[in-house]
C-alpha cells in the first residue's frame, strides 16, 4: 500500500533522512522506534507533505501513485492521515465544524456531494462515542485549552471520521495517562481492518502493548538500521538503543 524508496530529506541544508526504505501492506501495523533526533517526526511530516522539508532523493508511493508532487491536502484526499505530536490550537473554529469542513472538502475533491447533515451528525455521534468523548467537547474551539490527552483523543476522533488508508500516529502516546492511552489505542484497534494500515511512531514501547505491531523498525540517524517483530520493541525497552548503535558500528 505505502512504499518508501531511498528517501533522503533535509531542512535548511542539513540532511535528516538518509535513505529510508519501507514497505507497508494493507492490514499491517508498523512501528518506527528510535532515540530523540533520529528523524522519526521528520519522516511522518514528509509522508504527509509538509513543505518545510526538502525531499532530495527517493519517492513515496501510495497504491501505485507517487505522492511527491502532491500538496498536503491532496495527500489527505488520497487517504493519508497524520495524528500530530503537537496538534495545533485554532481558536474560533469548533471541533464539529472543523471536521465537517474537512470531510466535505475531501468529498468535494473526490467528486462527491457534501455529506447530508443527518448522516454527518450520526457519524459524529458514533465516532465520538468510540473515543468516549463528551458532547460538550465537540463544540469547543479546536484544541484550544485541551489537555494533552484531549488533544490526542481528538486526533484519533478525526482519524475515525476521515477513515484514512494509512494512518501515521506520531508520538500519540506522549502526554497520555493510562486511561487515555487505553481509550486511544482501543479506538485505533477498532478502526483497523484489512484495507488500511497504521504506522506508529514512538519513542517508548508503552503504546505497543495496546496496538500490537506486525513489524518494528529502528530509526537511527536518518536510517532504518534494524527491523523485527513485536518482540524487538520489548528488547529496545529493556536495553535501550546503544546496543544497536554498537552493532552498527561493529
Amino acid at each position, binding site marked *: 500500500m505505502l512504499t518508501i524508496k531511498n528517501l533522503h530529506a533535509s531542512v535548511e541544508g542539513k540532511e535528516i533522512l538518509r535513505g529510508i526504505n519501507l514497505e507497508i501492506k494493507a492490514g499491517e501495523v508498523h512501528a518506527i522506534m528510535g532515540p530523540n533526533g533520529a528523524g522519526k517526526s521528520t519522516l511522518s511530516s514528509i509522508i*504527509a*507533505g*509538509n*513543505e*518545510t522539508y526538502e525531499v532530495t532523493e527517493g519517492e513515496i508511493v501510495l497504491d501505485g501513485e507517487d505522492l511527491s508532487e502532491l*500538496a*498536503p*491536502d491532496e*495527500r*489527505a*484526499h488520497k487517504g*493519508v*492521515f*497524520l495524528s*500530530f505530536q503537537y*496538534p*495545533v490550537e*485554532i*481558536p*474560533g*473554529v*469548533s471541533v464539529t*465544524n*472543523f*471536521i*465537517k*469542513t*474537512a*470531510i466535505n*472538502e*475531501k468529498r468535494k*475533491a473526490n467528486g462527491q456531494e457534501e455529506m447530508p447533515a443527518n448522516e454527518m451528525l450520526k457519524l459524529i455521534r458514533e465516532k465520538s462515542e468510540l473515543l468516549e468523548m463528551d458532547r460538550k467537547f465537540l463544540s469547543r474551539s479546536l484544541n484550544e485549552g485541551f489537555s494533552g490527552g484531549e488533544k490526542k483523543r481528538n486526533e484519533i476522533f*478525526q482519524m475515525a471520521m*476521515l477513515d484514512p488508508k494509512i494512518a501515521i500516529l506520531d508520538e500519540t502516546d506522549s502526554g497520555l495517562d493510562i486511561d487515555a492511552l487505553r481509550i486511544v489505542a482501543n479506538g485505533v484497534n477498532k478502526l483497523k481492518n484489512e484495507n488500511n494500515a497504521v504506522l506508529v511512531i514512538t519513542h517508548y514501547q508503552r503504546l505497543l502493548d495496546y496496538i500490537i505491531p506486525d513489524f518494528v523498525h529502528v530509526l537511527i540517524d536518518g536510517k532504518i538500521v534494524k527491523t523485527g517483530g513485536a518482540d524487538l520493541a520489548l528488547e529496545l525497552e529493556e536495553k535501550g538503543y546503544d546496543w544497536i548503535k554498537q552493532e552498527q558500528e561493529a
Partner: protein
Amino acid sequence: MELREKLLASFMAFEEKVDVADALHNVRTEALKNFEEKGFPTKKEEAWKYTSLNALLKNDFSIFPKKENNIDIKDVKKYFLNDLDTYKVIFVDGIFNTFLSSTTHDGLDVCLMSSALTKPKYKMVIDTYFNQVASREESLTTLNTAFAFEGAYINIPKSRVVDKPIEIIYFSTGNEAALMVQPRNLVIVGENAHVQIVERHQSLNDNPVLTNSVTEIFAQKRAIVDYYKIQNDVQTANLIDNTYISQKQESRVAVHTFSFGGNLTRNNLNFFHHGERIDSTLKGITIIGDKQHVDHYTLVNHEQPNCESHQNYKTILDGQSTGVFNGKIFVEKEAQKTDAFQQNNNILLSDKATVNAKPQLEIFADDVKCSHGCTIGQLDENAMFYMQQRGIPKKEAKALLMYAFTSEVTSSIKIPELKAKIAKIIATKLGVNMGFDL
C-alpha cells in the same frame, strides 16, 4: 477651484436653499468659520499622521447633485438585510428616497434629518441634542455641521424596545463625475430603550465619491444601542466617518465596524461617559488589499467611576494596503474603578502591506484596570499544515484561519442575518465559497 474654496463659496447659496431657523444658522456659521480657519487636515497633524487626504482632494467633487437620481430596487436589493423585516432610511446621492425607505412615526421616530431640522415640532429635541456631542473643533466634523441638512433622524422613546433593526443606507449612483456627500445622523435612545442600527455607504459605479459623515448618538440611562457599520464599498469610494456617542449611566453602547472596501476609510469613533456603570464596546474587522487604506481612530473618555470599555480590532492586510489603529483612552481623575481594555491584532499577508498601531492611554485616576495589547504577525504555518493535512486546501485553510482570527468580533453580532451577511462578505473577499458555519 480647490475643494476648500468651493465649499466656502457655496455655503451661502446652500443656507438660502435650506431655510433653517436662526439658532441653527449660527451653529452653521460658527462651524464653517472653524473649517475655514483649519481647512482639511494634513499629515502634519498628529491625528492624521498616517492618513493623507491630498490625492483624494484633487478630484473635482460636486457638492450638490445636479438632479434627483433614482435607482431600481432590484439593483440594490443585495445591499439590504434580506430575509429580515427592517425599518429603512435610504438616501440616493444624499437625497432621501421614499420608494426604497420604510420609515415610521408610530411611537418612535425613524425618519429624516431634514424634517427634524425644519419642522417646529422637533425644535426642542434639535435644540437639546443637535451638535451637542459632535466636536466643534475638528475641521471635518465642523465642515459637516456647516452643511448638515440630510440624514437619518432616529428618536426612540423611553422603555421602547424597537421590534426590528433600522437600516440606514447611503447609495451613490455615480451619475456625477465625482460627488461629495455629507450625511448627518442623529440618534437618541431613551431610558431603558433598545435599538439595533445598521449603517452602510454604497457606490453603484466607479466614479469617485467622498463621504464626510457625522453621526451623533445619545444613549440615556440604561439604554442599549447596537450599532453596526458595513464598509464594503467599491475601491473609488472614500469615507470619513465621524461618530460621537454620549452615554448616560448604566447605558450600553456597542459599535462594530466592518471595513472591507473603499479606497480610503477613516473612522473617528468617540465615546463620552456621563454617568456611572456605563459599558462601551468598540469592535472592528478590517480586511483589505490592493492599495486600500483604513484608519481607525478611537477615543474613549472615562469621566465617571465604575465604567467599562472594551475595544477589539482585528485587521488583515494584503497587497500594498495600509492599516492604522490609534486608540486613545482617557481616564479622568474622578473615574476610579475604570475597567478599560484595548486589543488590536494585525495579520500581514504581504510584505508590501503596512500597519501603524498606536495605543494611547492617559490615566489620571489611581484605582483602575487598564490593559492594551497589540500584535502584528503572519498566518501560522503550523496551523496551515495542520488544516491541509486534514484535507482542507490551502486557500480554504487560509480563509478559515482568517475567519477564525476575526471570531472575537463576529461572535458579538446580535443580528443573526447580519452575522451571516458579514460571513458571506468575508468569504467573497477571501475568494472562497465557504459557509464559515462556525
